[in-house]
């Protein structure tokens, strides 16, 4: 696999004292901030912030899933938006049939069914495409993952039933017992708790035996084979796990926007997820979350000044890749070392 030229730190804090470093404090402030700021803003009459935060947290989950393969596994996927789209349509399509009939088998508002479907279809798509993509390396891998992503995009565009290009409105959100997702606070709570759970899962994964294998295969697949690993099947498994998590994020996204369209799985969305991972710090557990915060805030601030906010945004990204090794998390961990 292609190697990302970043300083990476695969070591996770494995005891409590390591929490009280610059990185530890920043991570804590980030998560507590994400829990409190939108909630307080909502109850003090600024509902706008909870909308932004919900979108941010959902994209952060997707970016964390991408970080598993891109940051830890060195598999530079440029097609992760497809998993987001698959997840969103796994909510939209059953809801559509539950409202308008046909395809009784999948017609349902049930959240467990819809989210389960999102995870299953995304994992299956990852398994099939990953099995092919992982036969290639480097730029070829980037291009073929993007090609598969665009394939899904055009497939959805061509299905008239679900609105094609125009997209599909979700009239009824996923139904969970005791949880009303049309309440913004409830939806945000679900997204935020999901982020915490996903972070914990990824933390356990990357430090497990499985995690050691995918990190070993990142830069040196030949060496992995020489010491006796079939790196391919481990990389494929990581790709499937990543796709499944991203599909779950897509199901949340569908519930948040209540309007789904092929636009949400365009290749530029895949690029945005990559920005978040690289800007925030690839192969750092919370890197993608920092990246998502930076991305959403920059987008909000810059788009307030100019319609062409992508331009200054691109410049910031280029500067950060050139001069800030390891992204924001990398910067934090170096600051911490200087202090200590």
């Amino acid at each position: 696999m292609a190697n990302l030229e970043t300083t990476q730190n695969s070591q996770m804090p494995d005891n409590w004292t390591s929490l009280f470093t610059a990185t530890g404090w920043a991570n804590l402030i980030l998560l507590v901030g994400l829990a409190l700021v939108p909630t307080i803003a909502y109850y003090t009459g600024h509902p706008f912030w909870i909308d932004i935060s919900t979108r941010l947290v959902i994209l952060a989950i997707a970016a964390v899933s991408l970080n598993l393969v891109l940051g830890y596994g060195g598999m530079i996927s440029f097609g992760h938006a497809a998993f987001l789209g698959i997840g969103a349509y796994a909510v939209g399509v059953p809801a559509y049939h539950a409202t308008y009939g046909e395809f009784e088998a999948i017609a349902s508002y049930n959240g467990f069914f819809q989210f389960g479907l999102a995870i299953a279809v995304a994992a299956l798509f990852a398994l099939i495409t990953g099995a092919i993509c992982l036969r290639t390396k480097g730029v070829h891998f980037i291009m073929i993952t993007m090609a598969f992503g665009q394939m899904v995009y055009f497939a959805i565009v061509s299905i008239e039933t679900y609105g094609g290009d125009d997209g599909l409105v979700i009239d009824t959100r996923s139904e969970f017992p005791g949880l009303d997702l049309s309440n913004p606070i409830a939806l945000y709570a679900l997204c935020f708790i999901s982020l915490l759970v996903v972070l914990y899962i990824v933390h356990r994964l990357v430090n497990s035996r499985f995690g050691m294998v995918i990190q070993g295969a990142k830069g040196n697949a030949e060496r992995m084979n020489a010491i006796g690993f079939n790196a391919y099947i481990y990389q494929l498994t990581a790709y499937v796990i990543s796709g499944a998590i991203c599909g779950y994020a897509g199901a949340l996204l569908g519930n948040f926007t209540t309007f789904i369209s092929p636009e949400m799985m365009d290749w530029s969305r895949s690029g945005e997820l990559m920005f978040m991972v690289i800007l925030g710090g690839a192969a750092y557990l919370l890197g993608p979350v920092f990246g998502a915060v930076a991305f959403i805030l920059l987008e909000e601030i810059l788009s307030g000044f100019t319609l062409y906010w992508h331009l200054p945004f691109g410049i910031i990204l280029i500067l950060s890749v050139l001069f800030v090794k390891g992204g924001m998390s990398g910067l934090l961990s170096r600051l911490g070392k200087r202090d200590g």
Partner: protein
Amino acid sequence: MAEPILSIQGLHKSFGGVTATDNVHLDVLDGETHAVIGPNGAGKTTLISQLSGALKPDAGRILFEGNNIVGQPAHKRSHIGLARSFQITSVFMEMTVLDNVALAVQAHDGHSFRFWTPARASKNLTDPAMACLKQVGLESRANDTASVMSHGERRQLEIAMALATKPKLLLLDEPMAGMGPDESARMVETLKSLSGKTMLLVEHDMDAVFALADRISVLVYGQVIATGTPDEVRADENVRHAYLGEAA
């Protein structure tokens, strides 16, 4: 006389018009250190790569403990007891020294579809890994990242990783490449301390070869032109002409 653990028979490999391995016959006996020497471009690394499974030969057989292993992928060959070190240092640069070796231990400790328990807390991995580091004298560097080690130390680490796979046959591709005299001497000591291990050693450093090898094969333009004890090879007319003569 010991049985050959590895028997190479009529091995052939060419790249376009260049024949890198030309009808090579070579036996490595159980317990011996067998050195392969030869000038640059003689096909030494190509030979090792075919043995480890990184390259596929055009023709010929490679018998390991009597079984033809041609066509077996590299990761399977590791499991039957073949371990390789690389000419160009090949360790996991971002990992610690201990993690590097523990990963090699892990490869031979069942499957790695274990997603939840931290690998670094597993004594089954770290204890054998530390033992291998002791063998090459790197135990004090266990928690350093491989990227901050010197070239010589990384080469020692490679040997530790190869040992961690509990090999029956070590394939060493120029372990002294790029080393200064002190580092080379240390590597010779390390390899000497492994006496009893069967080794196929490809090396440029003649002092090291004559210090370590029980038998030597001389490879020139992909062909084995002589095999014998160090004294026999030194005395061989063809070898003096083709190789030692040029070097001296």
